[in-house]
């Protein structure tokens, strides 16, 4: 399978959007394009599984390598393993849903969809890159669309949030840049991940480069205390923007933390694992407690994202195969869940014109579909079995517990404590919005979800359920890849 399709298709769609003449065309082209991406992602998934089933155990499949800046040894090197495939699937789900929920964007429709598709393309490119330079290129490519999406179509303190987001992400990129340059020179002028994974980088170098890379990518994935762009950015963004931000963009960081920082610099990872664990445990609990005090639905989800993403980082910091698998599951799960959450919040906001929990109530009566989805996503967030969040969190806990010393155990227990706090804030949110008496008479005339919203929600719910009910396929996808990473860490 030609992986370039994954970049080409969104790019083509984006260009087609630019060339289209009216809003209807824009919307339908985007929808068709994103559906095609979804189909492509599924195709990739099945072909990948098939390859693996037929005994192809090469670490990366469908590798392609074209020289780009040959004098600097930069190559268009692509390839996927299970992690990438999972992330690509996630991306395609969120892209379709994002396109669908933005159906009623009136302002600058063409530009909006163009940027959305560009963002998606950046993510695909990022996940298939095996060359750090190209990876960085795709990582950076997504910063400006995010900025514009928030700044132009956002709400609230949008300029401030957009600025903060762009600058903090830029700060992260700056660190990453230094980190990958360090790797480049340390390993004899190569950006190639596969080559770097075989190179030996001296200990002292690893100890410098690892924090740079990890913190750099950490900014993207809301590593405590560099998470402050998350609440503001997410809450100010338009619905699809928040979905992309939390659903895809934050995963870029997590993926980078694992694939680049941890995988390529295992000794550094070991050295700093405890700090990662402490920070992520703090993020988990602190994010959860901070969420508890929020009154705006978007802030609730944004802070809870900090908490949930903390789990992925915790999993990475635990450095066991199961925990890493769990961390990856959490990324996928959180991506779907949070995208859905934002979609639902957007739907509610479109109708009630408020996001304040205190001003709603009894939405179940008039908006049964939306409310039910809200319910499902809330339950997923608090880790209910049968939904994806549970699977991921439990895998992380199981993996974390494999470390037998008191430090890791206490961190695990602390992280596990968040499930109670999560229950508190999710139920508060649910209880005050969809349940309870109707506080505002005007809500009695609200209309339930339209077809596009239903479709978007259903796509994401299906994703959540597919992981929650039968996690085996995802596990099979991620575990061997995590094993490769663990092998490198363990030094075999």
């Amino acid at each position, binding site marked *: 399978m030609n992986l370039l399709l994954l970049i080409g298709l969104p790019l083509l769609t984006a260009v087609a959007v630019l060339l289209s003449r009216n809003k209807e065309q824009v919307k339908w082209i985007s929808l068709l394009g994103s559906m095609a991406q979804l189909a492509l992602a599924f195709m990739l998934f099945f072909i990948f599984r098939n390859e693996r089933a037929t005994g192809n155990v090469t670490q990366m499949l469908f590798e392609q390598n074209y020289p780009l800046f040959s*004098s600097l040894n*930069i190559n268009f090197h692509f390839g996927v393993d299970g992690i990438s495939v999972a992330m690509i699937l996630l991306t395609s789900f969120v892209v379709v849903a994002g396109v669908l929920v933005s159906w009623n964007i009136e302002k600058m429709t063409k530009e909006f969809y163009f940027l959305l598709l560009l963002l998606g393309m950046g993510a695909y490119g990022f996940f298939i890159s095996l060359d750090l330079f190209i990876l960085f290129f*795709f990582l950076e490519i997504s910063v400006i669309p995010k900025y514009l999406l928030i700044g*132009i179509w956002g709400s609230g303190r949008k300029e401030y949030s957009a600025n903060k987001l762009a600058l903090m992400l830029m700060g992260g*990129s700056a*660190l990453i840049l*230094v980190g990958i340059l360090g790797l480049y020179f340390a390993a004899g002028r190569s950006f190639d991940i596969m080559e770097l994974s075989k190179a030996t980088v001296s200990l002292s170098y690893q100890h410098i480069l690892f924090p740079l890379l990890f913190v750099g990518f950490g900014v993207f994935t809301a590593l405590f205390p560099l998470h402050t762009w998350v609440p503001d950015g997410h809450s100010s963004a338009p619905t699809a923007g928040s979905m992309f931000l939390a659903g895809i963009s934050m995963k870029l960081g997590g993926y980078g933390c694992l694939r680049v920082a941890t995988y390529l610099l295992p000794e550094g990872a070991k050295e700093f694992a405890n700090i990662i664990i402490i920070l992520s445990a703090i993020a988990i609990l602190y994010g959860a407690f901070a969420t508890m005090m929020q009154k705006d639905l978007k802030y609730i989800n944004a802070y809870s994202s900090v908490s949930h993403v903390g789990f992925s980082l915790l999993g990475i910091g635990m450095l066991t195969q199961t925990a890493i698998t769990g961390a990856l599951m959490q990324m996928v799960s959180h991506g779907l869940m949070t995208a859905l959450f934002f979609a639902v919040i957007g739907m509610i906001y479109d109708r009630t014109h408020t996001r304040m929990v205190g001003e709603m109530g009894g939405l179940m009566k008039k908006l049964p579909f939306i409310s039910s989805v809200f319910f499902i996503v809330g339950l997923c967030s608090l880790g209910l079995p049968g939904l994806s969040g549970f699977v991921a969190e439990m895998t992380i806990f199981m993996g974390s517990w494999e470390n037998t010393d008191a430090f890791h155990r206490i961190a695990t227990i602390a992280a596990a404590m968040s499930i109670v706090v999560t229950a508190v804030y999710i139920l508060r949110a649910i209880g005050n919005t969809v349940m309870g008496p109707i506080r505002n008479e005007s809500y009695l005339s609200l209309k339930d979800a339209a077809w596009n919203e239903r479709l978007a929600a259903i796509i994401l719910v299906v994703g959540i359920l597919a992981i929650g009910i039968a996690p085996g396929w995802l596990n099979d996808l991620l575990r061997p890849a995590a094993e490769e990473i663990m092998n490198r860490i363990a030094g075999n």
Partner: protein
Amino acid sequence: MNEFFTLMKSELVVTAIIFLLLFIKISKGIQHSSLLSLIQVLLLINFIAGFFFNKSGGLFGDMYQTSPLIVFQKNILSLAVYLISLLCTDWLKKTEHLPEFFMLMLSALLGMFFMISSGNLLIFYLSLELASIPVAAMANFDLSKKRSSEGAMKMILSSAFSSGILLFGISLIYGITGTLSFAAIPQLLDGSTLQIMAFIFLLSAFAFKLSIVPFHLWTADVYEGSPIATTSFLSVVSKGAIAFVLMTALYKVFAPMQDVWYTMLVILAIITMVIGNLFAIRQQNIKRFLAFSSIAQVGFILVGISSGSEIGITAVVYFVLIYTFSNLAAFGVAAVIAEQTGKENIDDYKGLYKTNPFLCWILALALFSLAGIPPTAGFFGKLFLITAGATKGSYTFITIAALNMIISLYYYLRVIRAAFMDKNDNPISTIKLNASVKLAMIICGAGILLVGLLSWVYDYIHSLSL
């Protein structure tokens, strides 16, 4: 003699155009607008001519040297001049001294050509003056504007002062080595303190022309005061040429003192980036804003130069090419708006997207490229500069450089924000773009998008710089 024509081709073409313009001026036969078109065609010819007969070699006892890389550098400058002639059509049409303006500009260009090709301190000094005195006159071309003359005055005085110091340095070098030839000087350099002193005098002149902090203070004032055509010439062509020469000077002439100048460049690069960025944050006038942003960009160029290897040369040449497109696009937009509405403040750009989406996208592309955001070429340019800077292994330096990109992003976003996001009841009305302006903007836009992604450009430069 045949060799003379092929090797000095670039200079000869420019000289020919200067004299052609002189005759036209004297005969006074041609109308203003057709004259402009003629000039634009001539400049295009000049640019295209640059691609033929590229050979290495020296003339006049190696006072003049050339090589494919040097010709390529000259071509970048020619291209920039051509683009300026297109972008500033509006202003150029209005000015009464059109042929004179171009004569001056081309003289300056000629000076830069000689400067890039120079193999001798004398010719270097002369061409440096040739490249700056006419520009000072050009700065005063908004004859009736107070600010224009003020800017010109600041420029000519500062530049005279700096060349005084430069000359003092050259005289010391001459005293120490007894030669002015680039090839002979390094043989007698051993890094004694007087040599360092002389080198610093010399470097300060480079720093002055390149606007390296703390020798940069004239920059913003002159940029703001001058007509935009002059400003863009100053900020792109002049900067580019000096950057090229600085590399020759450092890598060839002062090669024995590499330890000294490396550290010096690191210090200068850091303060240049930081100060340039800090000043740019606060600017309201778009020209002044771009002035400080270009100072910060120069800091990045220094990062590349500090590498002292062919990676550095490649990165700098590549960056200057990209910078040409990006900065000219930004200046082009500013020029069109300033010329048609008289508005030069960033706040005036609020709500621009509603009325002028094309201009906004070009502006956005340009600024993103300057900020180093993919997929624009600026990303690659900056990245390669930093990569070049990292060859020496000083990661603190690289980290500071990389972190500076945050501040720079901040102020570029300010403009973007004004144009795209801020609401304005009275935005600048829709501007009708001249065909040549549009053409130039499209060229710039295409350059910004393609130079980075088409990697052979970089590889080609690399093959030249080996």
